[in-house]
């Protein structure tokens, strides 16, 4: 479904601030995969998502989605088939507009036409959808009045309405309290299984990454250092994961450590 070949992303090339955020990434995501991506801050998880979504261009490599080369495609074009939810709950909805206006914008993807789709039948439909998150009486309220958890749940429902082929979840519950995070996560799971979606999810919770999804990828310093799926993933525990991580890191850093310590 999604194939990344030799993807490299260098920020500020040729300056003192030069930073290689992704180094020669090769990754193939099959249809129906639900992938958890873990890794410490600065390991390249977010950059990977931004590259897939098209927020910025790659320095090198090709991205193929559904058999089509999308490497040079603009972000808004990729968004036609790739849904994305951000960590920041304010990014997925427009605060200055009512809930119903937000939903009508999300209902169909692509450039809108000069017709008025929002009528009472649609409102009834939206009310039904909103019942899942208990917002059915707030259709006319501005989204800015909702809480972070409510906004993130609404974003998720809106993404589900537009029926993407693939879903990118960028730590989308990290800014929420545990109860709201659970609500949003339950919705996410239901929505992935109902629409049989392919999904990529960034998380910092290792136990969660082990329990959720069909595949686990660990990133470090712009590289994919671990990629497990199937039975192998089921056998994982947090301890094993940490041990694996240490083993891999030791190999690469033994030399660096020797350079840096003097005693």
């Amino acid at each position: 479904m999604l194939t990344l070949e030799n993807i490299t992303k260098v920020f500020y090339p040729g300056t003192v601030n030069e930073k290689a955020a992704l180094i020669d990434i090769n990754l193939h995501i099959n249809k129906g995969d639900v992938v958890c991506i873990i890794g410490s801050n600065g390991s390249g998880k977010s950059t990977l998502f931004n590259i897939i979504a098209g927020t910025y261009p790659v320095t090198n490599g090709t991205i193929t989605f559904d058999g089509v080369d999308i490497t040079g495609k603009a972000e808004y074009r990729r968004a036609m088939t790739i849904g994305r939810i951000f960590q920041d709950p304010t990014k997925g909805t427009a605060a200055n507009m009512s809930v119903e206006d937000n939903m009508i914008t999300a209902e169909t993807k692509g450039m809108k036409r000069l017709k008025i789709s929002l009528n009472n039948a649609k409102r009834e439909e939206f009310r039904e959808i909103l019942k899942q998150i208990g917002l059915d009486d707030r259709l006319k309220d501005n989204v800015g009045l909702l809480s972070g958890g409510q906004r993130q749940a609404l974003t998720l429902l809106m993404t589900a309405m537009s029926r993407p082929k693939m879903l990118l979840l960028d730590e989308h519950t990290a800014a929420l309290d545990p109860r709201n995070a659970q609500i949003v996560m339950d919705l996410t799971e239901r929505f992935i299984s109902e629409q049989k979606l392919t999904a990529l999810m960034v998380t910092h919770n290792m136990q969660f990454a082990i329990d959720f999804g069909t595949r686990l990828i660990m990133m470090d310093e712009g590289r994919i250092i671990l990629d497990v799926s199937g039975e192998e993933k089921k056998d994982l525990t947090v301890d094993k994961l940490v041990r694996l991580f240490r083993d891999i890191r030791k190999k690469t850093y033994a030399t660096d450590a020797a350079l840096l310590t003097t005693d």
Partner: protein
Amino acid sequence: MIEGIFVDGLIFSLMVIGILISYRILDFADLTCDGSVATGAAVATMAIVSGVPISIALVFAFVSGVIAGMVTAAIHNKLKIPGLLAGILTMTMLYSINLRILGNKANVPLLRVQTLYTKLPAFFSFFKPEIASLVGTLLFVLVVKSLVDLWFRTDLGVSMGAMGGNEQMVISQGINPDVLKLMGIGLSNGLIALSGGLLAQYQGFADANLGQGMVVQGLAAIMIGEFLFSSNRISLITLRAIFGAIIYKALLFFGRKYGYLVNITPNDFKLLTGILVIVSLFIAQGRSAASSRGARKKALARKTAQEETDAYA
């Protein structure tokens, strides 16, 4: 006399709606306005002077504004420079263009030709001439306002509002924000130029310096309007912009008439308008803090009510 304030305010209100679209709905600080209002006046005047029917002349004025706005949006989109700078560039270039349109004259009078404001009294001959001008302008403004309201209720219009609130969201919905900006800033400046076209006919001449300081005046009118009532419905938002425009013009009128009593001359109006905007922003800030406090209280009340019903269940 009093009718004059209303006609002036209504003509001005079209420009205020234009500024409302760029500043409030699209969240795009657009200064093209200072140039495009004069372009509209110049185009309408030259068209009427050369014998084009008034309605067609107003269409020309509108289209000239749309083009001016699209130039600003295109500069912003293609060169990735802030909208503010793009607007200043277009505005500056428009000054020369406006002089060209006016045949290299700083102003062109509309003497001895029929304009909207000589025709209206004849058309509504059962009214006094001043009332006839007022009724005609009111009808015109109401029609334009309704069309704008309709536009922003369509799916396209709603997505423009969404872009003003959150550009990332629009991108995530597969919409090219550059195209929305082209259309939105175009529409905004089209209305501004239309207002210029009416103004030229009302005052009887087009002037290359007509647009100076118009943006700030328009913002002042928007803010006055926002004090009247709060709403997220487009029809009420444009309505309060119209009220704001009329109130602003009334303030100017009384300033001109009675200002000498407190030693204020028309030279001070720009300063006072600026201060009005700053004070409005200051009050709006206090208000938004108060309303978020109110929202928190409401949310708490809802929660308590929920807990009570839970306790009974």
